[in-house]
């Protein structure tokens, strides 16, 4: 990377903004129809009733909340990479930070939809907001769901501001290289950034604070998500380890998603010069780490369920591994904490197909982890007479597909029309010499 000159950097990135091919637009249109499908399913559900989904008593939460947690999880590594690694001055995050942040922002948008989709009476969702009203009714600030609302919206605002602020200098670069309409648009967007040293002086400081604030925020947000479950008393939910365990899991899935996105991107956009194998290697190593944490959490939960000699806990965990949903459970264990161990092997870490394949597996594994927890917990809890099972309906699958399409729709639009690698930060790393210290 050190061989790069500043202008090469600019050029490589700006090349990605060239007018798109027909194939690209075809994909965009496809995604759009996917979104329509999801929206259609949702509309139908609103009209007929939430019962078109598979939820029931006892399993009153279905795929909607699974997807919610899944997407929030995806959203995490973005900020992790750009904020935490920035604090650690790990320069290897620079080439992927922008794309990761983008992923974060869009993933949060998608995630944010699901609690709404999940509601029985979406039309009065505003009851959950603290707005002044004549009857002086307010939300219940003791409810984990209200924590959620606050945390997720905070996270969305912060991460998008972080994202935009980080983009400012690059927007200016595009402005300076562009012509016509695009120039005018980027002229507005870049807020007249000219890289005066006064600007840099405050900018670097502000960016540091951003990172310093975003880091605890990431941790808190997924802790709050975990408390949607851990604060309940349902066996398999009510567990103190949930917060760190969910955070690790979130990063786990997020990093996997980063790989899933970066690997195609670097070939399509010829980013190999920036997104080198070393970087993928580093991501892979981090995945091993998070995978180990997640595995540790699984183990601890089982050990203490056995140790506790609480018959409800024991039955719940026995059933988790041997009951109706044992498949999901074993997929979860293998994909999340066994498969990633392959990354101990250097060859695997540096082979694109392996990286890509494993990243996909981890995404699947993390989805089923949420399934195991959210469905498995209540399906088999305190009252044996109330035990039941749940299986998603076609409507829910439609919404799921829609959510993926929405995400890729937004992401694809972004990478083709905005600088998807931070030129400024690249120049910095080139300037500093490739100092990848974590």
């Amino acid at each position: 990377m050190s061989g790069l000159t500043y202008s090469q950097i600019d050029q490589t990135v700006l090349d990605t903004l060239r007018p798109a091919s027909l194939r690209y637009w075809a994909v965009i249109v496809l995604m759009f129809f996917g979104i329509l499908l999801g929206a259609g399913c949702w509309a139908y559900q609103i009209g007929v009733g939430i019962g078109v989904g598979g939820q029931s008593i006892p399993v009153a939460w279905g795929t909607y909340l699974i997807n919610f947690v899944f997407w929030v999880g995806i959203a995490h590594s973005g900020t992790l990479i750009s904020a935490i690694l920035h604090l650690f001055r790990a320069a290897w995050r620079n080439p992927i930070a922008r794309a990761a942040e983008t992923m974060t922002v869009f993933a949060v948008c998608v995630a944010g939809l699901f609690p709404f989709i999940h509601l029985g009476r979406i039309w009065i969702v505003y009851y959950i907001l603290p707005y002044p009203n004549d009857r002086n009714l307010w939300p219940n600030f003791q409810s984990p769901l209200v924590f959620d609302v606050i945390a997720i919206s905070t996270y969305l605002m912060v991460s998008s501001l972080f994202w935009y602020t980080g983009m400012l200098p690059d927007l200016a670069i595009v402005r300076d290289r562009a012509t016509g309409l695009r120039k005018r648009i980027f002229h507005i967007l870049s807020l007249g950034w000219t890289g005066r040293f006064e600007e840099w002086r405050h900018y670097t400081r502000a960016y540091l604070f951003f990172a310093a604030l975003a880091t605890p925020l990431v941790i808190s947000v997924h802790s709050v998500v975990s408390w949607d479950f851990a604060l309940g008393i349902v066996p398999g939910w009510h567990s103190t380890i949930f917060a760190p365990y969910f955070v690790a899991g979130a990063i786990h899935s997020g990093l996997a998603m980063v790989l899933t996105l970066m690997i195609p991107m670097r070939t399509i956009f010829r980013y190999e010069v920036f997104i080198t194998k070393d970087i993928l290697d580093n991501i892979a190593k981090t995945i091993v780490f998070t995978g180990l944490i997640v595995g540790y959490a699984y183990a601890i939960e089982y050990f203490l369920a056995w140790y506790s000699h609480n018959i409800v806990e024991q039955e719940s965990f026995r059933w988790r591994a041997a009951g109706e949903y044992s498949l999901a459970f074993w997929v979860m264990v293998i994909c999340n904490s066994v498969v990633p161990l392959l990354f101990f092997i250097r060859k695997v870490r540096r082979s694109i197909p392996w990286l890509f394949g494993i990243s996909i597996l981890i995404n699947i594994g993390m989805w089923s982890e949420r399934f195991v927890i959210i469905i498995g917990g209540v399906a088999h809890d305190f009252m044996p007479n109330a035990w039941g099972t749940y299986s998603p309906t076609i409507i829910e699958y439609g919404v799921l597909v829609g959510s993926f399409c929405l995400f890729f729709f937004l992401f694809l639009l972004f990478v083709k029309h905005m600088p998807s690698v931070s030129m400024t930060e690249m120049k910095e790393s080139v300037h500093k010499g490739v100092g990848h210290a974590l």
Partner: protein
Amino acid sequence: MLSEKQVIGLFKDENLAASAIESMAGCPWQLRGVNSPFPSERIMKAMKAGKSRVGHFTLAGGIIGFLSGVSLAAYTSLQWSLIVSGKPVVALIPYLIVGFEFTILFAVFGNIVGLITQTRLPEYRSVSTYDPRCSGEYFGVLASCAEGNQDALLAFFKEKGGEARFL
């Protein structure tokens, strides 16, 4: 006072730019500004810049956020004093979460406010008076001098190892 002439010197290397800036002290021309493609400690040093004050905004925001978060939760729950799950009406333990999230949110707002007020962005005028190459690979040093000294200034920049031109 005679009308001023503005000259911009462009340097490919930050050290040259920095030394130019440093040796500008005690010369008849004034430094008007420096543009760079990325933040450069070297130039910061040369400019003898103080510490940015953005942090104060951030901190203030954070404190306001925490207080408003907790007090919002407490105030609203006191409106009807409904008991849920036997928990105290004002339960500070869970309210810490609300407080925390508000802290971060407001701190970030403070941070943004700080950034905007300090850098005086957005302002689109200066875009016209700067060299687009500065967002590419050049460090631009903008200086102004009294009518007549401009050639000397040009020469100065050239001799410092950069290229220079009038604006």
